[in-house]
């Protein structure tokens, strides 16, 4: 069984401060994490590999300036990782990455299971995995807590209508994992050192592929572009409700309902 894991990185939000009044984002500590939901996808892949013969290959969810998170995936147990490079890739959005990743998966010989986080911590985007499902012609299972494989099928546990249900589908399947679903294991110390040194059994586990060898340059043109940032007005704090306890409670209930609808 070949399992593809799609991994992205995100700037640690605890290292940034957003000042709406100044219209600026201050980065106090530039530290990157594996996208939390993608980390769950990696752990799910490694757990399947723990129980059966499987090859786990890590691919990036977006253009990466370095291959650090892919080396970390290898250190944690992934068999291979492909670092996608090329100048044309730099501006790729989810639609462009779908084309590149589909071509990369085809070059790898296809996939039985693609695992990816259901959402990104920063932008909240969840479209890449489902675009991949469409491009690969596979089934999609979204928002999984657990993933397993048996009898040639892929099984998962989801929450639907307030209940947990088990579902299954025939490969190829794209499964998106919820953030917090699984705790990512620690890297193996020896593999970690060897993957950075390029020696040992993981010495050649990381490969770099030029995106231009996978798809035409025109396919890398992003469909979505950024047209700037907006900052919400400063919060008005210190507002007090007045009236009887019942009236105040009603005001609080209305405010809570409005907030929780969002």
């Amino acid at each position: 069984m070949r399992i593809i894991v799609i991994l992205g990185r995100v700037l640690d939000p605890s290292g940034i401060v957003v000042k709406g009044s100044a219209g600026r984002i201050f980065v106090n500590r530039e530290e990157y994490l594996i996208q939390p939901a993608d980390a769950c996808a990696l752990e799910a892949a490694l757990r399947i590999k723990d129980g059966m013969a499987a090859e786990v290959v890590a691919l990036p969810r977006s253009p990466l300036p370095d291959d650090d998170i892919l080396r970390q995936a290898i250190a944690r147990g992934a068999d291979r990782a492909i670092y996608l490079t090329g100048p044309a890739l730099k501006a790729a959005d989810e639609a462009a990455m779908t084309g590149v990743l589909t071509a990369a998966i085809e070059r790898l010989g296809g996939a039985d299971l693609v695992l990816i986080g259901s959402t990104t911590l920063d932008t909240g985007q969840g479209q890449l995995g489902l675009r991949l499902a469409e491009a690969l012609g596979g089934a999609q299972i979204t928002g999984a807590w657990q993933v397993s494989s048996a009898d040639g099928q892929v099984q998962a546990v989801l929450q639907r209508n307030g209940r947990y249900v088990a579902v299954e589908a025939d490969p190829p399947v794209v499964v998106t994992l919820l953030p917090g679903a699984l705790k990512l294991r620690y890297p193996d110390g020896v593999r970690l050192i060897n993957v950075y040194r390029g020696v040992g059994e993981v010495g050649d586990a990381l490969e770099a592929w030029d995106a231009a060898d996978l798809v035409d340059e025109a396919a890398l043109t992003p469909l979505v572009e950024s047209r700037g940032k907006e900052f919400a007005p400063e919060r008005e704090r210190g507002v007090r409700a007045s009236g009887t306890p019942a009236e105040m409670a009603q005001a609080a209930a209305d405010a809570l309902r409005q907030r929780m609808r969002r």
Partner: protein
Amino acid sequence: MDASYLDLLMAQQEEITEEAAGGGGVWVVADVVNGSIAPVTLEGIGAARTLADSLGAYVYGVLLGAGGADLAQTLYQAGADGVRVADDAGLSEFALEPYLHVLADLFEAEQPEVVILAATQQGQELAPRLAQRMGGGLIEHVTAVTLDEATRTVQGAVPIYGGQYFEILACPEARPQFLTIEPGTFPAPFVDSYRKGEPTLLDVEPATPAVRVIGPAEDFEPPPVPLKQAPVIVAAGRQVGGEAGFALVQQLATALGGRVAGDRGARDAGWIEAGQVVDVRGVEVAPEVYVAAGIRGDTFHNAAIEEAGFILAIHPDPHAPIFESADLGLEAEPQDVLPALLEALGD
């Protein structure tokens, strides 16, 4: 004043007639919840109406389900110029492939300019598949839209890091432009109860869901959400009103689907464990909603809740520092307000 003649006049309003097929337009895919059109769909119709009026286009609603064709009038009343209805037993509950099959066929024929779906499970599953199939761009979790009229491009504001700021995204070339909109972020449109139309029924070809439900996952227990990541926290303080007040805090946490926490006073009283203390020396939190009941709010506590999205404070002392951090403050004894709050939330 007798205004009944207005009713008569309005009732004579002509039925809405649609433009011929193939005219682009702004389309809204409806979410149906418990047999009713979801509020977010009406909000989508309102947003679509605004965009369509600037574009000189029509608004179309798409309704999929079983036996819910009557709901089409709700879409007309909210502002749709045309409604397509796929009424089939196989569409009674959302399943990806049957819904995708209907919508992909419809949109291939109609070539929409803009398609709006809700940022719900249904919309979030459908939109990427449709966008990929049709070569369209997709902007997810949009909370506001503007229009670049020169290029007929919709610009969507997308919250970053949970809304700390917003990125303005646009699909300048690709058509259709797909958007998923966040529930509750667009105003509900005016509902004109005199507006009506004749929906077009779609032919539905059966499609089998690729994912099969095996059954309930009875043994499954989700991992506990760390307090730091809990989306809703209800916290008790020393002045919550004793054991009885803390019981009300627990009830409120259950009602809101949140976690119980507290300040050091609550821990000293033995109501919570050390790992539930919200404080810069304990756990710093960033929930969407934080309710502080009977917490006075010292510097260490208030600094630990700085990143909370909405803070409701309940405390009898009008000078309690917690009120300076709160978005809404109630100057009252928690045991007086919490029962009424639970009742109001239950309505």
